């Protein structure tokens, strides 16, 4: 059996609830009362890496570029079964400030090259299709191009066999199938699998694991964020149709009125 070396790149993002609250100067999200999470597409990337290693043997590594606090997301990945973690950071990332996509991709590609120089090439590198917060749709592609590797985005199905990966992507009528020789890079989407929860031994391991920290210098590209605004929201007057099962006739009246029964 050919073992696989897999790398997953993840991003720490806030988990806002009913509304995204901005800081007074509109320069960022007010994260005071927010929890943080791994961007959902990447949670599935982590799960897929673990499953591939379970099937083929080998190892899965998780990598992030992020503030010191992103250590939490790396350790979470270890708690669900990833073997090792690497953290790339820089003081300018404090408080969750983003680097632009060009700077992010350069830092990640450089880190990957240095990891590969010591331990050998990764057979498969997984990215989330886009990050949940900034939604740039490009970091994985830029990294793959810098590394000179093939990449396809939007992947919701992965099978590795005989040195190549068959990947499925959703289309309007079903799926498109792509086949890439390894080493390759894929941008994946939520729905690829159902991520597992941490186990107790996993949690213990994640507390103890050594996470090497690399620093990267920001090399900004040409797109700079100035400020944020909430998207305009329609304010509606809610019509109360009643309480409990007694409201059923009123609901069916509405369905009739809309011509839907």
């Amino acid at each position, binding site marked *: 059996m050919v073992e696989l070396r897999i790398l997953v790149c993840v991003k720490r993002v806030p988990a806002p609830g*009913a509304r995204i609250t901005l800081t007074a100067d509109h320069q960022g999200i007010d994260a005071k009362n927010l929890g943080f999470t791994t961007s959902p597409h990447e949670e599935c990337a982590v799960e897929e890496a673990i499953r591939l290693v379970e099937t083929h043997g080998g190892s899965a590594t998780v990598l992030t570029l992020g503030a010191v606090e992103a250590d939490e997301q790396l350790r979470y990945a270890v708690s669900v079964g990833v073997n090792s973690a690497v953290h790339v950071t820089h003081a300018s990332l404090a408080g969750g400030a983003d680097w632009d996509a060009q700077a992010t991709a350069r830092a990640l590609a450089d880190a990957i090259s240095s990891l590969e120089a010591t331990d050998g090439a990764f057979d498969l590198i997984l990215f989330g299709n886009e990050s949940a917060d*900034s939604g740039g749709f490009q970091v994985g592609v830029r990294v793959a191009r810098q590394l000179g590797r093939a990449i396809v985005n939007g992947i919701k199905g992965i099978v590795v066999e005989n040195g190549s990966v068959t990947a499925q992507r959703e289309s309007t009528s079903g799926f498109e199938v792509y086949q890439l020789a390894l080493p390759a890079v894929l941008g994946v989407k939520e729905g690829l699998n159902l991520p597992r929860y941490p186990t107790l031994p996993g949690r213990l391991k994640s507390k103890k694991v050594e996470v090497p920290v690399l620093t990267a210098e920001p090399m900004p590209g040409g797109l700079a964020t100035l400020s944020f605004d909430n998207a305009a929201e329609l304010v509606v007057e809610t019509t109360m149709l009643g309480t409990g099962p007694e409201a059923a006739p009123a609901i069916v009246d509405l369905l009739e009125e809309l011509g839907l029964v």
Partner: protein
Amino acid sequence: MSNEILVVVEHDRGEVTETSYQAFGLARTLLSAGVGTSITAVVIGAEADALAAGIGSYGAGLSVLVHHAELTDYAPEAWGDVVAQLIASRAPAAVVATGTDRGNEVLAHAAAIADLPFAANVTDVSLADGLGLTRVRWGGSLLEQSRLHAPVYVLSGSAHTFTGEPSGDAAATTEVFEPTLDASAARTRVVDRVTLAAGITLTTAAVVVSGGRGVGSADGFAPLTELADLLGGAVGCSRVVTNNGWRPHSDQVGQTGKRIAPELYIACGISGAIQHWVGMMASKHVLAINTDNEANMVGKAEYAVIGDLHKILPAVSDEIRRRRASA
């Protein structure tokens, strides 16, 4: 730098959608803002040559037909290579596409090769010091103001923001471009397709009965399925539901699920988190069924019923059957 705006015409083996033509809407918005003076359509692959005939009506004066033996079906790397070569040879003012899976993917490749910044899902532009942009974040719930400095502006337009309608009846001239592609350019080409049975789906249904954590279990979805069946609709759900394995991810509505716009969205036991809301905010009407009258979904919905969905939904199905029987 020329004053051309290149529009990458997204197509699938020669078939184009209205969404794809929205890239011309973005190009015309750029012209109005003072970026560029003409629009050139880029049609990749000889299988799509026929598209050139109608493209003048979208505002393009020229169609560049890209021909190469390797360009037989969609291949993100090859398409990106083509666009990067056109950037190098034509030095356009801007390159645009619609912000779909393919549009964003092709522009990301082109920008990576050309070492240019790329702004995805733009909703507005203005000429500033550089180019002033508004673009969407968080799947559309947050707008970002940003500034783009680049010799060539590479942008995708947020889907359903710019018009995909023709703007006149002018004809475009055509020109053939033969890119230099090595065999590796086709290594990411589509090799096969799986077609799923069409029927009433979450994205096409007029009524969607959707459930959240309040449904409580996989079995708890029975009354939702029953009502959806009675109405010829589909069942949807929140991410909590898919994360618990109660429904497949294909039923998930929201930022990382489907974007839908039914006539009526019935949100049962769904609190209305922003990431869920962005997936169904285009619904014509929303009915919230929730035990909590302060739930965000109740406040945002046009109609609401307060109470336990497990009691209310069966009563609604019974009422529909009763009325049908007596009609």
